[in-house]
């Protein structure tokens, strides 16, 4: 079996180049920039050509000897520059030697240890001791370190590169976030999670008695289904998690600068994409916002399940939470082929089994990669605070 990679297109032949060319995308801005740069270079080439023509008596031979002529013109300049550099260099050396000779012996130990020449006593010793220089060096080292440490204390360190680092301790805290969810005493709106009994689930048709009650209720339900947006949002956070606006360039790196993977899939060519990205959606600034959103539309076991799924450490994708607070910002773990992706279709949700306190909604959606239309049945119940929440879902 022969192995091929995309670098096979490097120095490709004309046929392959054409295939690549068709798929080459250059934005209008990039094109303009390239064109302008080309024009600038063209102007320079023209200017250089006219300059050459002016200084060259044999115009007819310009095209053949242009390079030589250009070089010849620079020879005096280069020679003068070289002489100048040599003179400056020699002067500098002389000055530094003079300074060294005149330097008092009360210089800093570091300098004296490093640059001190052997004294008459030392030079008379034909078998130079290794201890003396080492003692001198160690003294110098000590002083150097003192000097350095004082320098360090007064000079602020340059800023770290703008990579995202998170100490391990924070990682653990973040990953345990979901586990702590169970102990979370935040006052979430409470609703009665008892599922309506079969007796309560009378349909609208059975209750129709000529007044507008059922119609009003239907309107209310339908109006509520508009608020499915919130539930869609929650589901989007999971199923189509990459849909959440995020900054593709701001990824989470560990202390060693290594990408923290969302899932380890070395076989997957796109696995380098699997990491945590900074969420830029202003609706979600932290995992707390996601928790609140889940609380807004779900209740009971459904709420717990979704919280655990989105924020818990036991979530899929290698045990990593899908969302994590990193350095005070919210990050989303993106695994491009880590499961089915859902796209909501435009069909109207189907409402059935309506009662005073509950109804079910079937929402059509398209799931990739299967590309079939499915229905998600949601059991919606009304809590004591008169808000509707989803208590259970079923994929159909």
């Amino acid at each position, binding site marked *: *079996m*022969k*192995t*091929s*990679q*995309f*670098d*096979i*297109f*490097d*120095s*490709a*032949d*004309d*046929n*392959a*180049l054409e*295939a*690549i*060319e068709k*798929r*080459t*995308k*250059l*934005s209008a801005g*990039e*094109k303009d*920039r*390239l*064109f302008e*740069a*080309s*024009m*600038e*270079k*063209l102007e*320079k*080439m*023209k200017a250089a050509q006219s300059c050459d023509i002016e200084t060259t008596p044999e115009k007819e031979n310009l095209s053949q000897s242009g390079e030589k002529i250009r070089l010849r013109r620079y020879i005096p300049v280069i020679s003068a520059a070289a002489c100048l550099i040599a003179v400056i260099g020699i002067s500098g050396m002389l000055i530094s030697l003079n300074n060294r000779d005149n330097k008092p012996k009360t210089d800093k130990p570091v300098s004296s240890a490093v640059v001190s020449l052997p004294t008459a006593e030392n030079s008379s010793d034909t078998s130079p001791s290794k201890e003396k220089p080492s003692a001198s060096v160690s003294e110098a080292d000590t002083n150097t370190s003192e000097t350095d440490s004082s320098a360090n204390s007064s000079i602020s360190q340059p800023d770290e590169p703008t990579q995202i680092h998170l100490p391990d301790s924070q990682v653990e805290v973040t990953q345990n976030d979901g586990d702590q969810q169970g102990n979370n005493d935040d006052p979430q709106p409470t609703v009665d999670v008892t599922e309506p009994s079969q007796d309560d689930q009378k349909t609208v048709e059975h209750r129709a008695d000529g007044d507008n009650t059922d119609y009003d209720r239907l309107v209310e339900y339908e109006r509520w289904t508009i608020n499915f947006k919130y539930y869609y949002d929650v589901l989007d956070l999971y199923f*189509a*998690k*990459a*849909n959440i606006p*995020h900054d*593709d*360039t701001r990824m989470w790196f560990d202390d060693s600068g290594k990408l923290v993977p969302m899932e380890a899939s070395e076989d*997957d*060519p*796109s696995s380098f*994409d699997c990491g945590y990205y900074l969420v830029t959606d202003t609706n979600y600034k932290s995992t707390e916002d996601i928790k609140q959103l889940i609380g807004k539309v779900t209740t009971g076991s459904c709420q717990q399940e979704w919280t655990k799924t989105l924020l818990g450490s036991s979530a899929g994708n290698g045990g990593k939470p899908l969302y994590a607070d990193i350095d005070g910002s919210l990050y989303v773990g*993106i695994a*491009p*082929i880590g499961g089915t*992706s859902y796209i909501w279709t435009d069909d109207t949700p189907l409402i059935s089994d309506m009662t005073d306190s509950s109804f079910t909604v079937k929402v059509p959606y398209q799931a*990739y*990669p299967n590309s079939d239309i499915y229905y998600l049945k949601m059991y919606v119940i009304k809590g004591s605070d008169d808000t509707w929440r989803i208590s259970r879902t079923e994929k159909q």
Partner: protein
Amino acid sequence: MTGEKYSQLYERSPEEAYRALFDEYCKYVYAIAFSKLRACGTAEDTEECVSDIFAEVFFRLDSEKAKGELKGFIATIAKRRAINKYYSLNAKTGDTVSLDSGEISDLVSDSDTEHSAQRSDLSAELAQKIDELGEPDSTIVVQRFYYERSSADIASDLGMKPSAVRMRSARAMKKLKKALEKDGYTL
């Protein structure tokens, strides 16, 4: 574009002629420059090379009357300029091999011609399979895995969501792998 067409445009307005030529061949030139510099240069190096190429093309066309299709003429300049750039970049990074060193022997191979022919076959095969993916998948694959552009950038170009680009690229790669495996290649 033919040399005659270019000359007509040039007589009317040199600027217009430059722009028309640039618009027609900029992607082609970019693809050539990128294919040579991908392994050793940055995006800026490629862009610099592209502008060098066009400057030379315009400069030459100013003084020489070109006839017939200009694509071959442009391709020749582009390839030569890109190769020069490749060497200058490698000289900077020290990736060159001295003729005096023993390393040169590593570069010599009896099967160079065979290897080159194999590469050509492979690239043609891959190009064809990518074509067969259909749009937008073929563009996504090339942009993602050859040009190594981010999903967000591709999405912005294609008017899609980054997630959709990721999804499609993953699926397209699977398809591509399968298609190549059938013909005895692995990707």
